[in-house]
């Protein structure tokens, strides 16, 4: 964990975020600030809008109102090209991994590199791909297809792909869901190791309380579309509030 970073500059500032689907309001005036170098875990029940929140941050969903400033630039006000530029600083780890199943692991990792850095040398691409896979101890899977890997390996490859463009912020959508406790612990350690190595800031969505405990600098409880409470894991664990306690029981 990275508490010393807590007092540094904000990298994400969300104000009065509102997002609904039809008549159903999912986010209702949500506010959040993420400091540089910190891991913020968003906790909430299924359907509470956690995934909607991070999809709004990366511009996959447009909010109904409110602002999301990433490095002082408002995401909802951007056009496609500006969004692409902003996204180069943000990594996103999908719950389903979202690896391209028609490509090998090497091609999966090369794909974003070749499109972002048009003039990059072939040798440099190869070096970066190998380095990214070495970071997650999966260099031997270089020429394998995603269908040949286990769930934990897929998650690690997805993490390597997320990190390959050296993002400054990473959004994790339930990184340990569906994994056994040992693999979950490995993924948590990887998240912390890569964060330490690359000095990234993160928002992590998780139901897994072990993951929350191990990775969170700050825990935010999302309830009824709002930031219900915010604090360290230890502070929230000791809370007498029933809405908070139910997550720690």
């Amino acid at each position, binding site marked *: 964990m990275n508490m010393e970073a807590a007092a540094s500059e904000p990298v994400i500032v969300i104000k009065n975020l509102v997002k609904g689907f039809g008549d159903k309001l999912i986010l209702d005036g949500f506010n959040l600030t993420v400091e540089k170098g910190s891991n913020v875990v968003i906790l909430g029940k299924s359907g509470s809008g956690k995934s909607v929140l991070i999809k709004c941050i*990366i511009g*996959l969903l447009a909010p109904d109102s409110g602002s999301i400033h990433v490095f002082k630039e408002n995401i909802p006000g951007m056009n*496609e090209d500006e969004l*692409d*530029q902003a*996204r*180069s600083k*943000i*990594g*996103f780890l*999908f*719950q*389903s991994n*979202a*690896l*391209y*199943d*028609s490509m090998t692991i090497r091609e999966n990792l090369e*794909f*974003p590199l070749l*499109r*972002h850095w*048009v003039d990059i040398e072939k040798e440099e691409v190869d070096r970066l791909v190998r380095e990214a896979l070495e970071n997650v101890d999966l260099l031997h899977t270089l020429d394998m297809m995603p269908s040949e890997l286990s769930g934990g390996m897929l998650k690690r490859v997805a993490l390597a792909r997320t990190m390959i*463009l050296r993002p400054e912020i990473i959004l994790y959508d339930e990184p340990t869901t569906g994994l056994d406790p040992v693999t979950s612990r490995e993924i948590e350690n990887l998240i912390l190791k890569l964060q330490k190595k690359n000095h990234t800031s993160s928002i992590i969505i998780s139901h897994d309380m072990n993951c929350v405990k191990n990775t969170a600098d700050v825990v935010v409880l999302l309830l009824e579309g709002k930031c219900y409470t915010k604090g360290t894991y230890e502070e929230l664990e000791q809370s007498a509030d029933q809405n908070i306690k139910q997550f720690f029981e």
Partner: protein
Amino acid sequence: MALIVSFKKFLDETGDIARFTGRFFSVGMKPRYENRELLNQCYNIGYLSFPLVALTAFIMGLVLTMQLRPSLVEYGVESQLPVMVGLAIVREIGPVITALIFAGKIGSSIGAELGSMKVTEQIDAMTVSGIKPYKYLVATRVLATTLMLPLLTILGDGISLFGAYLGVNIRSVTSIDLFFLQVFKSLDFSDVLPAIIKTLFFGFAVGMVGCYKGFNSSKGTQGVGVSANSAVVLSSVLIFIIDLLAVQITELLGLN
């Protein structure tokens, strides 16, 4: 009430498809061009469809000749069989049947492939990596279907005529030179050109509908099946509508 709801849904979908198609010209045609992916799609869509198109074209030519012969014999114009078959294949049956086979094979595969990418968040993964999925996935596939279908139709027409030649020779003896001389003598540019031009539109429709259905897939794996199926149905209907329009336009232009 249900009829009104269905009609509104139909109008909504028509509007969505029109907007999706508009993006092909506003987004898909702008640099940077995905030339490598376009070539890859031309190979998948064109080259790999050729065996199926060739087989069906051959059978179509053979069967058409065998079916036409009794009627022509009855009217005493059996000698006109190559002319009749040639005109029917080149002007109408070749392009339409090839396009329908193409819609069945390619429309469904594009719908299923993009639908699967959509439900497994692979399209979102491209977006967040700063890659434009419309340009990479849609523009390349639509361009490939638009370019490959006319080529497949020309090749299919040739194979179909060869099948017709064999069909003619089942009951009588005609040399290959004489058969093709009779066929080509009866054809002119106004028969060939409109038939090839309309296949460009057939190809565009098959690619665009497949991509639209795949891109708008939902409800998990069941949705992928629905996308693939509805891509084939809608593109087949569009092929007939475009064919009808093409006939009207060629008539208006005096090319019939």
